């Protein structure tokens, strides 16, 4: 198992490297960033001054390795817009995004897992069909639209929950719920099919022949085996959700990394965009590696 994980870790490092290059190239894909920073009215001298100030006049490879080197030490450059170190900006906003992601994942698991189990136990019957329908509808729902509709509902009609900002933990409920909808269909389907397969397995038949209680059979024996792929998917979904936080944060006005990224993109604040792309990619890579480790832990067959 350790050899397997080592291979995965090496692969992760290689992917990181590729993402670094991609992220770096991203901001230079349309040409000279100095032009964008300087604005349409700038003179050639102004543009050149900006170039020198931000080190954009050096050869590309030099810029790249310089950036990587600094990033490794925690220096992600300075934001053109805020004139602050990017690292500070990100550090201030990361907790909000991470909390949002975790709340979203929590909602997704709390909703999808029980529903998936219930659907599996009632396979083919009305309850199963209803649950499958819900998954289908959830998949087609645009998250930003759902967010807006909920804002109208809770902001205008029922005044139960805050609809913008995060004064306290309740501000994460609505956005977290909307975010969870993107992960629920996949988790639901996987849980359901995993449970159906588990319940039809020979070892469940043995458990029944041993007279074990229904609760033990479903929750302990079947669920344990159905859980393994779900864990991997859950980690991946968290990664996607963090990527999708950009939409939710703009809709609900949450001061997170996603909102920062959106502001930076629309205002061509390249150092920030570069850094956030890198950060999100690193988190995703870390999550998938963690999912592999968790899988190895859960499945004794992988440990040998």
């Amino acid at each position, binding site marked *: 198992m350790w050899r397997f994980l080592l291979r995965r870790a090496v692969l992760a490092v290689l992917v990181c490297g590729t993402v670094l290059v991609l992220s770096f190239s991203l901001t230079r894909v349309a040409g000279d960033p100095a032009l964008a920073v300087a604005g349409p009215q700038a003179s050639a001298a102004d543009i050149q001054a900006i170039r020198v100030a931000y080190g954009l006049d050096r050869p590309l490879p030099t810029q790249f390795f310089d950036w990587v080197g600094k990033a490794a030490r925690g220096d992600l450059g300075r934001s053109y817009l805020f004139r602050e170190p990017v690292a500070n900006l990100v550090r201030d906003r990361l907790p909000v995004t991470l909390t949002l992601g975790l709340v979203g994942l929590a909602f997704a698991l709390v909703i999808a897992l029980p529903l998936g189990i219930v659907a599996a136990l009632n396979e083919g019957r009305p309850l199963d069909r209803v649950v499958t329908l819900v998954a289908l509808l959830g998949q087609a729902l645009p998250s930003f639209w759902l967010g807006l509709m909920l804002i109208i509902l809770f902001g205008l009609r029922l005044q139960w929950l805050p609809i913008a900002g995060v004064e306290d933990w309740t501000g994460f409920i609505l956005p977290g719920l909307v975010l969870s909808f993107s992960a629920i269909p996949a988790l639901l389907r996987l849980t359901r099919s995993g449970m159906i397969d588990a319940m039809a397995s020979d070892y469940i038949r043995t*458990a029944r022949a041993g007279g*074990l209680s229904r609760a033990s059979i479903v929750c302990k024996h079947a669920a344990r085996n159905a859980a393994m792929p779900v864990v991997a998917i859950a980690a991946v979904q968290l990664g996607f959700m963090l990527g999708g936080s950009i939409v939710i944060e703009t809709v609900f006005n949450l001061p997170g990394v996603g909102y920062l990224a959106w502001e930076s993109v629309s205002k061509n604040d390249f150092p920030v965009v570069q850094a956030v792309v890198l950060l999100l990619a690193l988190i995703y890579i870390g999550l998938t590696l963690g999912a592999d480790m968790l899988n190895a832990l859960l499945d004794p067959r992988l440990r040998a």
Partner: protein
Amino acid sequence: MGCGTCSGCAGVSEPVLAVEGLRVRFGGVEAVRGASLAVRAGETHCLVGESGCGKSVSARAVMGLLAPNAVRSVGAMRFEGADIAGLNDRAMGKLRGDRIGMIFQEPMTSLNPAYTVGSQMTEVYRRHRGGQQRAAVDRAASLLARVGMANPGLRLGQFPHQLSGGLRQRVMIAMALMCEPRLLIADEPTTALDVTVQAGILRLLAGLQAEMGLALLLITHDLGVVARVAHRVSVMYAGQVVESAPAAELFAAPTHPYTRGLLASVPVPGKVRRDEKLGSIPGTVPRIGPGFVGCGFRDRCAHAMAVCAEAVPLRQAGAGHDYLCQLT
């Protein structure tokens, strides 16, 4: 066939398991059509037949382990004298693993890969007997030793995938015996194992039976297994028990045409001459739908008559020897 109706069980005690008139239907297929059998303490009763004859279904019907879409009806089903036909799943669950044990054909997939052998065994024990984990572990270790495993302590902490097929089957047997059941149902326990391993398992089962006075219902399609361990044999075909007799008698004097065909098709070293053709039964096992009347074997039987299309009478060929046929 069933006690009270057949001829040969006079003077012996109540059978541990008595089934009369078992019928099982899946959708449009009649898998079991009025099967009856009885198993006594200390007796190995082999239920033999080819695939699809309904023998596994019968065993599962007794245990209440049929698929949700199965419809079961039975004239009488008694375990240790008490009626179990009317029990719901929860009540039946109290008997399963405790008074009645069952082992299955596929040892490779019949154990949960996520839990250790020990935890699976102790869970069954503590479900029915309660008590401390310590006592359950001790019992599990002693049973593993009893089924012939060296180093039980090590095995208890291992996961199923770390054991070979033969070892897993021994674990299954030990697990089924954790609560000292009166009846053990073994559904093709050796079919998926190597020939060399089979003999060991059969010997183990025979030994355990002698020691614990188990009633053993052994389901198999292999006449070799029957010859080796059976005290009593019931031959099943197309959902019915077509012949039932003490083992020695069945081999000496098979009466039902199907049984005779079956025995004739097994090559016996020394008895078969090189130029003799090996017997075989032409045709295939039919799929019986609802409303089928008469003998299920008539399309393949060399002695079929017009009257075979009507309800078939139960006849006796000797003490404790019954068969279902129009022929006398």
